[in-house]
């Protein structure tokens, strides 16, 4: 059992979403919901009550034709690390240890059976990522047989959120062990939305590994909380210091500026 000692290899999983490529088709949302057994209701018109771990927002530059421009922004959980690792907005307020930050993967976990639904985390999350189950899930007849057995189903009264498809990491480890190795290759662990995106806008990987595409796309500055150094990369609400692990890329300045609250004539932080 001694091998386990050097077992704790640290990954830092992150995502980069190219907003110039995103067409707003919503395939990522659908893939996410079916992968993660996210409940839905017969009437989904009330967007405030609908559960989406990953939500696509529509941004516009507010100008009239011919200067009008639109951008779609998919928003999963940002898996914030905070100012020191694990001081994520949600993790630091949870009174039940239901949500936690894992230093081995950089992923913020949510244990539904531990959560008692106080919703502090929802108030703390600056990205509105977290969702509350107002009802027990009701699946259309026959659909309960098509649920993903690798993801547990949530009950009424608990908070849930995107987990970067963490169960796929668990399966990837098992696959690696079957081959007798411990390390996971880039393609072994990819989230459902990444694979579903027809435009190839989403890139997922390990920021601690310089050869991973996501690292090369965003060029994180590990000395400054992973701030992106690539010219068109930015994070949402960068100046809050959440140290998010979802990066966005856009060649359009108005889009980059929408990522944070800027004064009218202020220059965008980190842009070159």
């Amino acid at each position: 059992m001694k091998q386990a000692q050097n077992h704790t290899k640290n990954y830092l999983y992150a995502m980069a979403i190219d907003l110039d490529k995103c067409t707003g088709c919503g395939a990522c949302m659908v893939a996410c919901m079916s992968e993660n057994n996210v409940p839905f209701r017969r009437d989904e018109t009330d967007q405030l009550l609908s559960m989406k771990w990953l939500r696509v927002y529509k941004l516009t530059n507010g100008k009239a034709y011919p200067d009008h421009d639109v951008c779609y922004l998919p928003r999963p959980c940002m898996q914030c690390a905070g100012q020191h690792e694990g001081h994520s907005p949600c993790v630091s307020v949870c009174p039940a240890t239901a949500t936690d930050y894992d230093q081995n993967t950089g992923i913020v976990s949510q244990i539904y059976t531990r959560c008692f639904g106080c919703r502090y985390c929802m108030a703390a999350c600056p990205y509105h990522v977290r969702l509350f189950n107002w009802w027990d899930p009701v699946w259309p007849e026959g659909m309960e047989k098509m649920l993903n057995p690798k993801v547990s189903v949530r009950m009424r009264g608990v908070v849930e959120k995107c987990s970067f498809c963490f169960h796929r990491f668990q399966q990837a480890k098992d696959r690696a062990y079957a081959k007798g190795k411990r390390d996971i290759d880039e393609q072994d662990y990819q989230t459902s939305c990444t694979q579903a995106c027809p435009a190839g806008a989403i890139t997922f990987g390990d920021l601690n590994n310089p050869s991973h595409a996501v690292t090369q796309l965003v060029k994180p500055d590990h000395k400054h909380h992973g701030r992106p150094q690539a010219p068109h990369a930015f994070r949402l609400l960068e100046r809050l210091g959440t140290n998010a692990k979802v990066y966005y890329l856009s060649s359009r300045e108005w889009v980059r500026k929408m990522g944070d609250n800027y004064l009218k004539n202020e220059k965008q932080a980190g842009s070159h």
Partner: protein
Amino acid sequence: MSTIDDQTTADVPQTPEDENGHPKHDPAPAADSNAPVMLSFIIGIVISLIIGWAVFPKLLYSQKTQPVNFNHAMHMDPEISAEGCASCHYFREDGSFSGIPKLASCAECHEDVLGESEEEARFVEEYVKTGKEVPWLVYARQPDCVFFSHIAHVKMGNMECKTCHGDIGVSTQTRVYEENRITGYSRDIWGKNIAGFKKNTWDRMKMDDCAECHKANNVNQGSVQTLRGGCFVCHK
């Protein structure tokens, strides 16, 4: 109209006072009146203990028998199972664990009745002939929210089945499955001993039992909140 206070003061018997004006206590009658109180208190405790330690566990768990009385020891004959346990419990190519074998692998041998045993005849009649899967009860079944990986422990950790399951591999018959009436979980999770004492590593398999061994072996102790195992190591 008299208040409750008035009534109680009126009902309280006056304590006799001695010459110095101090309340006078007669020791003998006091001991007499305490004895029955103490006795019923002790009897009460004993009854509660009996209910708590002996009756409640019996009520809490319902007893179920496995659908087929499977004989591990008999099937471990090298002529029957050439690859030992792995003939039936093996890892698939993707690292997942096959678990309890499906009917198809039993049918490879049991397509027709092989021996004299009544249990085998019933098994062949009820399941193999009808093609109905055997609804085995899994003693070690964890709650839905738990992720467990056999390959991590058995292949990477070189652990024996016995460490977690006990001696099922050499058993000659299936034991009774006890189901918690409230949670629906198997008794193997909480353990035989209602107080939670355990002698063997396999006596109990609660979260703390997993976590204790993981801490000792430094398995992914990445949780920021608890400084122990990250929740997503074992949960899904």
